[in-house]
């Protein structure tokens, strides 16, 4: 028998917001001021059976690519500065899911088919890690995602 794991009370509101975004096809970007991204990912992913991958994982690209073929939720934890391939992959996904007009060309340029229709992505990042990114990247993420802050 599986049991829903307990979720910290301060996560409930951002969780609700994230779930709403996922359901409506938006990409939640949840920023954690207290450095709790991993804890949130652990608790919430278990509750909704999402897959969790870290940008710092050596096989991040393989994990990301494989996930796009499935109709499920993927939590990407940005635990190191996005650069090169990891940045391209996320950019490609954001473009493919742009509510103002989907553009699959960036993913195609990486040799990746558009994500499965039911695929959902949430991006989790600690504020300190986000702050290390160039302002253009921060703005780009904020533009394409629905940003939620967690104290």
């Amino acid at each position: 028998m599986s049991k829903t794991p307990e979720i910290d009370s301060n996560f409930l509101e951002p969780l609700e917001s994230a779930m709403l975004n996922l359901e409506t096809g938006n990409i939640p970007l949840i920023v954690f001021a207290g450095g709790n991204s991993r804890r949130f990912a652990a608790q919430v992913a278990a509750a909704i059976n999402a897959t969790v991958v870290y940008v710092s994982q050596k096989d991040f690209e393989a994990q990301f690519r494989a996930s796009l073929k499935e109709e499920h939720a993927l939590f990407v934890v940005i635990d190191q500065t996005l650069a090169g391939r990891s940045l391209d992959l996320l950019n490609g996904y954001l473009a493919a899911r742009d509510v103002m007009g989907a553009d699959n060309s960036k993913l195609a340029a990486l040799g990746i088919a558009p994500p499965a229709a039911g695929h959902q992505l949430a991006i989790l990042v600690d504020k300190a890690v986000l702050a290390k990114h160039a302002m253009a990247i921060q703005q780009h993420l904020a533009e394409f995602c629905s940003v939620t802050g967690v104290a």
Partner: protein
Amino acid sequence: MPSRRRGARQGLVDRAPVSHRRRSRPADVLGYAFSVDGSLDPATKLLDVGLDQHTPLQARHTLLAEPLHMSVAIHELTHFVSLENALGHVIGFLAMRARTLAASIEQAAVQGLPFDSSWIALYAAWQLKYRLLLELWRPFLEGLAVYAQVHEPDQEGDALIEPVGILLSWSLFISMHGPDNVSARKAWQSGYKQFLEAAYTAIRKGPALRHGKEELAVALEFVNPAGLRPYSFGHAYIRALQSALAEKCEVYESSERFFNLVMRILRSSTRRLLSDTSSWDQPIMTDRVYGWVDIVRQAPASRVQALDGQLDAVDVLHFLATGEAERGYDGTGRGDTTTVRQIVPQFWEEFETALSKQPRPAKMPPEETPTDRAARLVAGWMRGTMSLNLSSNGGVFVIGWIPQGLAPLNALALKVDDVVWWLALTDEDLAKVVDDAVALPQLGTAAMRESVSAPATAHRLLIDSYVSYELWDQASTSPSDPTVMPAVSFRLWNPATADSMLHLQIAGARPGVIGPHLSVRTSENQAALQFTGLSRLRHDVRDALSSSELAGVLRAHAHADLAKTLENLLEKEELAVARVIAHVERSILATLLQRVPSDEDLELLERGLSVVPDARKFGPLIAATYSMFAWADASLAAHVRRLNASATAVLGKPVFEIDDRGFVRYRGLWA
């Protein structure tokens, strides 16, 4: 691919597809890559510590003479004892089913029998569950095994770590032979001291034993080669656990007391740790498995101090977290299958359903339900894997026999290296190992009480030795006492007629007649369970094809589509396993740092102590002070202080502890 494997595969076509075959070491064993290779297959608990083609006495001599060999044996035996609990039972259950499914698929493919993709999906599901569980626990299990090799032993204390206790039991039993009780006891006493001293020596030398080109401690601290990551981080985690416990209760400053508490936690807390979870590849699961240190850090000191006086079965982690003393295992062994069913209910159900579809065996009691049958088979598997093979294929020679020498049994004299072991056996058993007993030299009855000087005949037999945990069912009187006891058993056979094996145990002395000697196990259940059917199944399970090998067999037998299906599932399995490893490493890192790891911290996973400039030069000092203080002269002390300053600049703390008198101890990256 090694030629041995090619040969086995070629043979596959000609004979039974899954009969005994030995393949190269599978990737999912718990092993240790010393120059003396060692491994333990967690599924079957079959051990390989380089003691094949050794008699029990040769094996003992090798362990006594070579600290490296003893160290490897302690490492692998730690795995064995670490898996005598719900964790080990579930690992064994999952692997047994996964690998027998693999064997069935292979057999069907090779023999042209009908099967379909549902078999592939079923196998992949079991295999995935097994791999996830193993990789989830690997750093813990390897870290604990490394700890057993390199800790600072408390030689004056009254506790032994369990793997040393098992080795010592085995050593004592095989040394106990002699023509009479007095000489047997003398051999026993001197053997005890000698073996224990050798074990302590191996442990004290552990950090400095060679691992490839470097000392073990250096290889661990610099995470070199990269394959040592689970060992290195697991060991750091185990040391952090000891620090957290010792901070609240000084009893656990003793390595032995700490180690045995960890064993108790594994026995008492794994049922709860593994239950009620949706998926083992979720980070919540890794936080739970690696949450021990945080539980101890948050527990009141009084709870940690109370552990020492509690019943063994009290769930330690639950008690530390809540103060509630709840039973973590039932203490009789009878609840083990229930626990497995509770932890992996869907898999148990599949197993039970599969059994119900098979023809009802003639010997099966009419009232036995599929549920009962599944429980009986799994219990048999668990009990069968409680037997640890230590030495194997040792050559012994028959000296002669005394018909009815141990009336009503015959006495057979065996030359085992430079001593004589006597075996009591019936005519029928004698015929299993000796073609023509009448042609053997007949000895006088006095021979059993004297040193036999008769030369060995050319009649050569082979012997294996085992340590078993035998169930000691005393539930009616004291259900929380230990339920298993170590015992030694042997397998003896004539290589010319290998199908007829004798399963032996040690029998007590008969005063005035003979000292401790060997007898044939007569308990059919025990013997059959330990050695015949289950022994074969254990080897078949251990030697089953890996997923990629199975895909190769499918492709070679015109099942390219199924091979592709399997490879796709294997790809998903590897991704899931990689996620588990990533979650585990980050969970351990957060515990060790006691904060959220930054992206710079992740470099520690890769490079270990290499992040500190010039640390490499201190390799020998790290090995020498890994588990104990050593004195450094003024010049060396000055170098250590400079390195500490450098480490503090990079890590925020020194890596060596050094006092005013110049005594130095390596603290590590995480202390």
